[in-house]
């Protein structure tokens, strides 16, 4: 019974690290002050992995006279609960509003920890969650297992229709943009001039493109660049003190990516080879670059082939 003994051993090996992970399954919420009354909780600059529990997106905590405001709330029920507790401890005020910047699950599945009546998102994001939320949820459970326990897909209760929201004198400007997804919310704090860019902004972390429209993304970056803002909290990567570097880097990456993948199609590379193209040295500062190039090949290559490869059926010799 060589086989069954090996199977039993494999079972033992598989069980012990899982138990260790189970014991350590608590999210650490570590807010860092980035402006007067605004904190950033930094996500890991990594793919969604078991060891980071999916906590890869940046979260913003704002203290207003009316209460605590959150921009994005993480990947899971457990993250949302930990975030709510940490934010309320920090500000001494209850969370009264949670904005969801866009549909992606690393930013919004923590809604499960809040009353949907205080959660606000763009109409397009609410429609995206209604259509794709279940699929994203399945993917998160598959990747993260027990981290996701109890997390349900909850639609935001408030559809954002105004350009501003006032919280007892602290006014936030709400910018309805798109390009990283079909609806991307950016938030500008008028008191400090701090911009919260959601995933329109990546900083020292390669942008991801699963639902991207690169032309609209560029337009949105131009809109952000024209704001008279100060620092910027990107969706992923460290706080951008200048407010312009994350915009520049994100635009530089998507311009390069679209050009390079178009060149790959016109050069006759298949998708595997296109995922191996050289990444320019200036992007060495960007985490997860190769990983995101290979994901982007999957997202963008078929449309580029349809654009650049000529029709050959029915052509006379």
């Amino acid at each position, binding site marked *: 019974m060589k086989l069954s003994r090996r*199977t039993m051993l494999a079972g033992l090996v598989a069980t012990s690290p899982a138990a260790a992970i189970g014991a350590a399954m608590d999210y650490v919420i570590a807010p860092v002050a980035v402006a007067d009354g605004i904190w950033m909780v930094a996500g890991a600059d990594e793919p969604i992995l078991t060891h980071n529990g999916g906590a890869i997106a940046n979260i913003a905590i704002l203290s207003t006279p009316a209460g605590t405001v959150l921009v994005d709330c993480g990947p899971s029920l457990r993250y949302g609960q930990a975030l709510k507790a940490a934010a309320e401890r920090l500000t001494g005020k209850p969370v009264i509003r949670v904005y969801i910047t866009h549909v992606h699950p690393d930013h919004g599945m923590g809604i499960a920890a809040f009353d949907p009546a205080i959660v606000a998102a763009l109409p397009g994001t609410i429609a995206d969650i209604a259509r794709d939320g279940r699929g994203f949820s399945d993917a998160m459970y598959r990747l993260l297992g027990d981290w996701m326990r109890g997390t349900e897909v909850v639609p935001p209760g408030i559809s954002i229709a105004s350009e501003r929201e006032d919280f007892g004198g602290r006014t936030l400007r709400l910018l309805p943009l798109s390009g990283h997804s079909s609806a991307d919310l950016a938030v500008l704090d008028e008191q400090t001039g701090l911009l919260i860019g959601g995933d329109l902004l990546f900083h020292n972390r390669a942008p991801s493109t699963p639902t991207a429209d690169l032309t609209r993304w560029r337009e949105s970056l131009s809109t952000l660049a024209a704001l008279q803002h100060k620092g910027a909290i990107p969706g992923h990567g460290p706080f951008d003190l200048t407010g312009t570097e994350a915009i520049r880097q994100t635009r530089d990456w998507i311009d390069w990516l679209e050009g390079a993948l178009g060149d790959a199609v016109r050069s006759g590379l*298949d998708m595997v080879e296109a995922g191996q193209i050289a990444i320019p040295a200036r992007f060495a500062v960007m985490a997860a670059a190769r990983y995101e190039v290979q994901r982007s090949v999957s997202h963008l290559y078929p449309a580029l082939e349809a654009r650049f490869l000529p029709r050959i059926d029915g052509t006379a010799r």
Partner: protein
Amino acid sequence: MRRHIVMTILLAVAPVPASARAPYPDDPLQSPMWTAHATTIFGDDPVRFDARVKLSFPQIAENQRSFPVALDARGLEGVKRMVVLADLNPIPIAIDYRPLAAAPYVATRIKLDQRTPVRGAVQLANGQWLVSGGWVDAAGGGCSAPPLSRVRGDWADHLGEMRGEAWPTGEAGTARLRVTIRHPMDTGFVANIPTYNIEELSVKSASGETMADMEIWASVAEDPAITIMPHAAPGDALTVDARDSNGRDYIAHLLVARLSALPEAPTP
């Protein structure tokens, strides 16, 4: 796990008498389906695992409906057959390719129905099979989800649209040919949609010589994209001829470009 063991034992014992089965080497991937697939594909031919068979794929299966795979055996002489398969797919073989007058290279995209070993197997003129591959982690359902064109409802509007181009390569007398064909590639695992897939594709020279010939299975992704390397020179005419399981023919003509592709392909 236990079910796999039972299955392996059944497959190993039941269908083939032990005496008739070739002694396959231990599978480095420890796949529960290794012996079954080896029996079907390799029969009594000698088999060994060999790193000169290069099977490349991305580090992440971003889309289980369409996973890029490239099988490169240009480091070997006398390759007569190349098979791309995923052990745990319900339709394990994706492509069975004969590079008759072509460098032994084939790339395409396949469906993944679950986490599975993905392999390249190459048969040499002396009958020997050389195999390599690796495990690919994937979300489930690549074979049992309806094709996107079925969901959109426009598959018939674009059926048979072919795109492609051929370029000379750094190797004299060898061209790189890429062809895409719009086709739903129905696996038969979606309710009320019977199997419907491209099942044959060949490339012929101007004189009618078959340079490349492959069987294609429904585990190849929707809208198949194929890359091969026929022995053709700049300006040579090539004919791509495919047929689907309803007997529909897909024919395209193209010329190998005069200029080689830029930038250079990366060395994997």
